């Protein structure tokens, strides 16, 4: 008779040899309910429960009958919860994780959080770059953070960890040419970003005394000619634009990007980074001549005075604040303000930040 209990309610354990006291869980419609029951003098008493159990007094003397009644009572009060069975879910996560750990040896680091809800891993790609990945685990595996350039498709949900990893590896594979291009650009004098990450798909590189070029590469279509934007005095930029339009047809899609850019812009080489800034000057070429620095809240100076004998750089914020503080000499016009350059006093205009 008591054996029946073990078959019907496997999560209930006998507390003694007489089999008249049980403690554990009964599973009803996917939910686990904790109970502790005892039979003394032919009467069943519920010693403890973690839910609101009915009080039946001395109605039951048989353990199986009592448990069946309790089961039906809970079942009547609850609605079936879908896959509330946590143990099965955890078993699934663990088996996926262990299988994954066994077969993927090129994973540098892999951690499953103690509550089994997140996995973080680091993977070395063929170029020796380390890519990182954060996965949230609920019913499926979802990529929530990664070091690669953003792509919507990567963020979909996967039923298997292995499938997710394969997809991520495929993305890394696909991005190899992009990484090589960016690394090639990094051999030039990069002004921005200060510390590039794989997500940064642009480089602002110095190409002349006070001209810089922003090269933007589409990570997923990087064999196209990159997008080019010049920053600097207009007369010099115009000249570069002219060179681009006459040389663009010679761009070799297979070539090294730096070589192609040098060819395109009719330069001999790119300038190399000035390791030591001039200590005697308060600010260097390209720095903003109001705040005397290159970076202000992460921004670089975007405005360049159009007067050829001035050509000083300004952060939009700095120039705007100056033009507004002089007030009387400044005129607003649509989305920009017009006033005098604080260096040469010639006309200068500044977009309203």
């Amino acid at each position, binding site marked *: 008779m008591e054996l029946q209990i073990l078959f019907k309610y496997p999560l209930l354990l006998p507390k003694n040899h007489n089999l008249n006291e049980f403690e554990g869980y009964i599973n009803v419609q996917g939910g686990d309910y904790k109970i502790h029951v005892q039979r003394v003098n032919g009467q069943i008493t519920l010693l403890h429960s973690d839910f609101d159990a009915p009080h039946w007094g001395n109605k039951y003397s048989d353990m199986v009958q009592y448990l069946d009644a309790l089961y039906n009572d809970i079942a009547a009060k609850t609605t079936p919860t879908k896959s509330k069975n946590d143990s099965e879910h955890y078993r699934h996560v663990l088996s996926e994780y262990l299988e994954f750990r066994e077969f993927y040896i090129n994973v540098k680091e892999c951690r499953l959080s103690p509550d089994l809800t997140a996995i973080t891993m680091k993977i070395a790609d063929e170029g020796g770059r380390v890519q990182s990945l954060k996965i949230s685990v609920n019913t499926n595996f979802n990529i929530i953070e990664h070091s690669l350039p953003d792509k919507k498709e990567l963020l979909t949900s996967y039923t298997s960890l292995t499938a997710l990893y394969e997809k991520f590896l495929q993305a890394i594979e696909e991005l190899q040419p992009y990484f090589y291009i960016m690394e090639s650009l990094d051999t030039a004098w990069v002004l921005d970003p200060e510390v590039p990450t794989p997500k940064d798909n642009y480089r602002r590189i110095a190409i002349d005394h006070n001209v810089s070029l922003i090269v933007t590469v589409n990570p997923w279509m990087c064999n196209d000619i990159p997008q080019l934007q010049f920053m600097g005095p207009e007369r010099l930029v115009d000249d570069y634009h002219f060179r681009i339009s006459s040389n663009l047809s010679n761009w070799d899609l297979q070539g090294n990007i730096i070589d192609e850019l040098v060819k395109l812009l009719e330069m001999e080489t790119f300038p190399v980074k000035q390791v030591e800034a001039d200590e005697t000057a*308060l600010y260097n070429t390209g720095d903003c*001549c*109001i*705040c005397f620095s290159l970076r202000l809240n992460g921004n670089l100076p975007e405005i360049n005075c159009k007067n050829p004998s001035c050509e*000083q750089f300004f952060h939009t914020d*700095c120039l705007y*604040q*100056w033009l507004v*503080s*002089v007030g*009387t*000499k400044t005129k607003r016009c649509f989305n920009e303000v017009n006033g005098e350059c*604080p*260096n040469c006093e010639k006309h200068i205009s500044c977009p309203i930040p």
Partner: protein
Amino acid sequence: MQKQQRLLKELGKISRLPPKGISLCAKDEKLNILEANILGPENNYPFSPPSIKFLTKVYHPNIDDNGRICLDLMKMPPKGSWKPTIGLEGLLIAIRMLLESPNPDDPLMTDIAEEFKSDKEEYIRKAKLFTKEHAK
């Protein structure tokens, strides 16, 4: 009634989102006395010139008894000609030049300016005396 309701609303708003440099709070239950604190505007260097004054007494048409200096470069346009590109070094050089060659046409001390124009020898004598006495 209106007074209480309205003041509570106003006080609530100002304590949640205080305007820069301003605070306001009630000093009694009936809200008859409120106390406000207003911080003076900070110097907005380099968008406005720094304030500079002499600690040493100087006998000079453009420097007053309190050490205040009347210098075009230290005033905002359109009256003055301050520019953010000037900087401290430029200003101090300009002040040194002002000591060397006073500008009696834009005086702060009219008596001294008058004297500088009409009796330069007397002016120089007094200036030297001042220097001997104060500039140690």
